[in-house]
């Protein structure tokens, strides 16, 4: 499969879900889609195009919570990034973990660090933060503030 065929197949299969298509360089493509379409789009790229899921990265842009899903098509050296923009107040998106195992841990990480709710995730426990960490405090949000004033007071040995 060539680069053009791969990109055309995504565009033709999901014409109504595309918001923006940015062909950045020969090796990098950024596609913004509607959040509702993430599962079919990701499945198409992962299964039909045979791409590898690199990782997802979450970004708080102050107006939205953005999640970028990075896929590599190894045989044609192309990195496809699927971008979704979620509502800041109640960020929610369907989970990719039931489709492939590789998305399991990173969704747990984004869930605890950015407060995104992944609907249908089999196991949304904490991954990195301790159990004592309070609910609803997300360290990678832009409005993150320290929550334990006593700990700050006692800081410095």
């Amino acid at each position, binding site marked *: 499969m060539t680069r053009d065929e791969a990109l055309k197949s995504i565009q033709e299969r999901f014409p109504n879900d595309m918001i923006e298509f940015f062909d950045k360089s020969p090796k*990098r493509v950024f596609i913004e889609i509607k959040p509702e379409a993430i599962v079919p789009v990701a499945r198409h790229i992962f299964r039909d195009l045979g791409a590898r899921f*690199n990782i997802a990265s979450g970004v708080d842009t102050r107006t939205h919570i953005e999640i970028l899903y990075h896929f590599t098509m190894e*045989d044609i050296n192309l990195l496809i990034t699927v971008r979704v923009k979620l509502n800041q107040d109640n960020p929610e998106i369907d989970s990719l973990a039931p489709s492939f*195992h*590789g998305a*399991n841990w990173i969704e747990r990480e984004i869930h605890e660090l950015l407060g995104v709710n992944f609907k249908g995730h089999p196991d949304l426990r904490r991954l*990195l933060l*301790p159990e004592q960490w309070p609910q609803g405090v997300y360290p990678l949000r832009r409005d*993150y503030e320290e929550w334990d004033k006593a700990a700050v007071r006692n*800081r410095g040995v």
Partner: protein
Amino acid sequence: MPKTVVPIGPYHPLQEEPEFFTLTVDGETVVDADVRLGYNHRGIEKLSERKTFDQGVFVVERICGICSTSHPFAYVQAVEDVFPMEVPERAKYIRTIIGEGERIHSHLLWLGLAGHFLGYNTVYMWAWKLREEILDAMEILSGNRNNYAMFKPGGVRRDIKAEDIPVAVKKIDSIVPTLEMLKKAVVDDPVLHCRTKGVGILTKEDAISYCAVGPIARASGVARDVRKNCPYAAYDRVEWNMIVTENGDVFDKAVIRVLETFESIKIMKSCLLNLPGGEIDAKITSVPVGEGIGHAEAPRGEVFHYVRSDGTNRPARHKVRAPTFMNLPTFKATVVGATLSDATIILAAIDPCYCCTERLAVRDKKGKKLYSGAELLRLSQEKTRMMREETAVK
């Protein structure tokens, strides 16, 4: 028979780094496994947002103590991808040399540890003795045994002197005969065969579904290597082979690493002997608005960095993904059904690197640590008490 829970960690003599594994066993057989991360958080991603692009290289260099160059390698490529721009040819070769030297010593380190875990300490001694020669060669080339500080966005920081090249090549050549002997010792040893063949098999389907990277994927027959698939630096300018095996067991994972060491020696020597002249730095002054992705093949698999720039001298977001983050979940797929005695070597075959996998610490807005030493001690004691209650270990 009632099921028993065997907790391993967070601090355990068999693990060089803290991580908490809960193995549920039925008799001798492992029936379920769970991993608890979070004992090694340092907040690199958050910290990097407060460092300039130039300083960020030094921060990411300290993510991992063994593969200290793979993170800068991916990071500088991510920053360069924001433009996108090309670096000078000589810098590409120097980057390749440093990256491969690191792969050789990291694979030898793993081989030694694997031998040690199996109770085969001869392999351990030999492998670490060879590693010493490579560290010496790296010191000749870069000035440091580890944490080379050679990379910067746009090129490399220091040049390799022409008079140092023959000395380094001689050092590298000196390990080849012993490494050949070690290879035969590993590949032909009947004890190692019994202990590792057919143990902890990761099937090809699982390797794809877990998105495994590096030697773990290649041992399961998935031909996946960033250096070959998405060539960067000078990897498309030298001759080398990607090693792929089919079985996915611990033995194949060991063989892959031994054979890859030979390939790395080949790449490193060929780059050193054909080092082109010219500039080593493209001298970038500012980074434009945009986003960039950089990935590089670390000894343990693909390192992935995502950088978003808002036009200032610091990244607005910097995401780091280490290879163990993708490879460690495969532990669950490989260990279930194995015996408890095999669990440690199955885990070791992943070559896990926890300090890479976790990059987060509790820090306040000004970047100060939120917890004092006493506070952390209290938290850790509380945690131990909780774990005791959970796992009912008295």
